[in-house]
């Protein structure tokens, strides 16, 4: 059988699912709205916990999808279902008939401006974790000018009812420690502080990273949430937080503040998602059937989900889900 499977999104989840389906003898078609495959991970420099170059992984994945049908710069503009097949109209006016649809639309980055008290977009020296990663990749960012004191703020846009995101974004803790080490590598003289509430080192090798951060990189972890950022006369940042372990509020001058922005649901797919009849969960991400045995299934037969469109996920989680969704789709078509 050579049935079409429509995969919306060409990031890690989309690529990996396509690879597997292709190997199973099906015909996956990736529709990607941007000009290249790879998604967020292609923008990343190195991966936690072992500083593995993201490029390696992405290149391998790209290698595997060679020969697979890919539409770049293309979006699904309309989709409807006709019994057991889906008819999708793409933004290039092409129509695709598919037996199943995989939503691999991933996430958006929380817009740091929404936490106005952190001063992103107001003060020059406040940047996001994504921008810092770009700096590591390209070596260029005019905000980074031999900083002497650097701060990382955890949980920006996560675990925060005031921005309506009550969930934990899962990867920011580890990313913050990874980036703290990396910036220390670039500026060995700098003092680096991270402001955390809980350090969630949940995966293999993550705790080792934490240990390394403390032992080898001398990154100072302060338990407390930054609540206000302002600028002093010299244009330096002044932050306020409570050092909750010491039990006193502290004030500190910094040259650079990095906001660990959370993952949010990618809302650009909302219209198509609605047409497919897939709802959202209480965190605003897509609702899968259940989180154990039905993590790739949705309320609609033939519509599957994989990766960070259902919740914040790390790269290994996403790849695992992408592989499992391929099996699910295969079984669905064979039934």
């Amino acid at each position: 059988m050579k049935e079409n499977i429509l995969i919306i999104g060409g990031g890690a989840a989309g690529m990996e699912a396509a690879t597997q389906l292709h190997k199973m003898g099906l015909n996956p078609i990736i529709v990607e709205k941007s000009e290249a495959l790879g998604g967020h991970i292609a923008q990343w420099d190195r991966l936690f916990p072992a500083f593995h170059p993201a490029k390696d992984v992405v290149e391998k994945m790209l290698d595997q999808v060679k020969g697979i049908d890919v539409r770049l710069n293309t979006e699904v503009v309309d989709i409807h279902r006709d019994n057991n097949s889906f008819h999708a109209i793409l933004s290039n006016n092409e129509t695709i008939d598919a037996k199943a649809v995989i939503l691999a639309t991933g996430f958006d980055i929380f817009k740091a401006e929404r936490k106005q008290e952190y001063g992103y977009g107001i003060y020059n020296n406040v940047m996001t974790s994504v921008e810092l990663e770009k700096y590591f990749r390209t070596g260029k960012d005019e905000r980074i000018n031999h900083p002497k004191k650097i701060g990382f703020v955890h949980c920006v846009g996560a675990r925060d009812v005031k921005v309506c995101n009550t969930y934990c974004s899962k990867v920011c803790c580890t990313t913050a420690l990874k980036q703290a080490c990396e910036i220390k590598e670039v500026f060995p003289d700098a003092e680096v502080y991270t402001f955390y509430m809980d350090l969630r080192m949940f995966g293999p090798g993550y705790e080792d990273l934490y240990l390394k951060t403390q032992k080898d990189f001398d990154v100072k972890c302060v338990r407390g949430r930054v609540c206000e950022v302002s600028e002093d006369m010299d244009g330096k940042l002044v932050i306020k937080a409570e050092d909750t372990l010491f039990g006193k509020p502290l004030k500190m001058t910094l040259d650079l503040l990095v906001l660990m922005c959370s993952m949010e649901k990618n809302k650009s797919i909302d219209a198509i998602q609605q047409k497919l009849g897939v709802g959202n969960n209480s965190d605003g991400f897509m609702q899968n059937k259940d989180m154990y045995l039905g993590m790739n299934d949705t309320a609609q037969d033939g519509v599957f989900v994989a990766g960070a469109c259902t919740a914040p996920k790390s790269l290994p989680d996403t790849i695992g889900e992408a592989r499992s969704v391929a099996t699910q789709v295969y079984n669905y078509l064979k039934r």
Partner: protein
Amino acid sequence: MDFGFCLSPSSHVKMDSVDLTTFNRLKETNPDINTCIACGSCTATCTAGHFTEMSFRRILLMLQRGKEDEAKKMIQHCMLCGKCTLVCPRGINIRKILLDITR
């Protein structure tokens, strides 16, 4: 088991004999009170905390560790400005709890 002797004084918080009446009373009208993650935002932003030791995070702990008098003393500095309530990532109605503690 009582061995007939022990050393005193002990600096431990005696969790076995902590009186939680006030905390439990607060919990009834403010169920959010249990959701504090002790992030310290309230303390860091506190207008009165700029000049004094005022810390809502610690007040909550004091109430759960048998230091109600200390908590009540700390509350005296509060200006009720509401900044703590505005920044709390758990959406706890801090101002209301502060007022309820002494009611």
